[in-house]
């Protein structure tokens, strides 16, 4: 599935959009980590919580749970939220 990457993470992906796979958000992030080492810890903390200023959308709808199921046709957006100056 397609994953839209925000600018702070493009030093890892070198691309605005990448392909990744998984049947859950957790698996998707594991695949992104496999392809782009270091990626996951920048967006998910060591307690498996989404970091405060990162947002995850599936087909335009925000999700908060890493167990959220995914279909191969889903479009994923990772977005940076406001975090001050």
């Amino acid at each position, binding site marked *: 599935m397609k994953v839209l990457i*925000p600018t702070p993470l493009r030093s890892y992906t070198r691309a605005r959009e990448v392909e990744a796979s998984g049947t859950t958000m957790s698996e998707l992030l594991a695949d992104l980590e496999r392809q782009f080492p270091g990626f996951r810890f920048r*967006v998910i903390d*060591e*307690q*498996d919580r989404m970091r405060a200023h990162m947002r995850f959308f599936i087909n335009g709808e925000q999700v908060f749970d890493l167990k959220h199921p995914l279909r191969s046709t889903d479009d994923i957006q990772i977005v*940076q*939220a406001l975090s001050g100056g």
Partner: protein
Amino acid sequence: MARKTAKSKARAKKPAAKAQAGRARPSRTLVLVATRKGAWLYHGDAARKTWRADGPHFLGHIINHVVLDPRDGRTLLAAAKTGHLGPTVFRSTDLGRTWKEAAKPPAFAKAANGEKGRAVDHTFWLTPAHANEPNVWYAGTSPQGLFRSEDGGVSWEPFSSVNDDPQYREWMGAQQDGTPDGPKMHSIIVDPRNPSHLYFAMSGGGVHETVDKGRTWKPLVKGLEVVGGFDPNTITFHDPHCVRMSPSNPDRLYQQNHCGIYRIDRPSNEWVRIGKKMPKQIGDIGFPMVVHPRDDNTAWVFPMDGQTVWPRISIDGVPVAFVTKNGGKSWQRLDSGLPKTQAWWTVKRQAMAADAQNPVGLYFGTTSGELWGTRDEGKKWAPIARHLPEIYAVEAAELR
């Protein structure tokens, strides 16, 4: 006394001449500046008069510390995060020409099911370990955590003896017990005589010591004051801002604390408040403290306004450093070259450093983004760089 003949004089000169020929190339000072928006490296000329700026590195990243490994003279570690992304550590083995991210940055252990675990917000402090332990580093984080790397900063392991110890967790307090930017572990110090002997400090949470390489730790807070009305026997209330070991005498430590300036001479376990001799109108509150590389009686502080609502800026808008040359018995003002009025900045706990030259060069970075230096131990200050982002840390290192 026998008078030297011309011949004996010539003989006497020979060893000196030989020493001259074999003398190592003089070192150049490198000043490493960590800011809220990136890192800069300033390369000094031999006289420390002109400085070449190398940066920004990691533009836009929040850099809390950049440290050169004195054991190889070319490896740098940088503690980084951004406004959005989680914390990490970057490593360079070519003095900043290229950087590579740590494979496993400092992170707390995963909490058991049903328990709320902690997450590292940022790595705040980096310390190279003992000279006999190449590639070993220590890191302190916010919230308070202690970490060790044995592969030069590529992967980091937590100290469960601190990070997960119930007593230490209690002493660390909660988020509101820390600094406005989060509670921090800092001032990780390695005894140059013994790699198993370490200190660290927590804001809040006091100063602590181990003699068994971190298996067990003990508080070292006797003699330190806490905010009025609170019990100094409660470790949580202690707020050491900056602890420094004397490079020429590892038994002597100095400390700038939330409640004064202190010194301890080991094996004593009691700190002595030496800031009482500061001028009354200045007081002895501040963040940084620096010790002379060859004289354990000489140390510098940079006082700030800790009255009323704690503005944390230069007192009356007039920045000034103070030096003691007798272990804290007396203090002298050092403000030549510094602004005389309307300078409302301060110097954070990591943002003042000394080089190893003779006379000693001192460097400090301000919350308003200015880097200042002196080539004569504080007699005359001059700006090195202006218009940088807010400066979080300054380190001075020698390149050979």
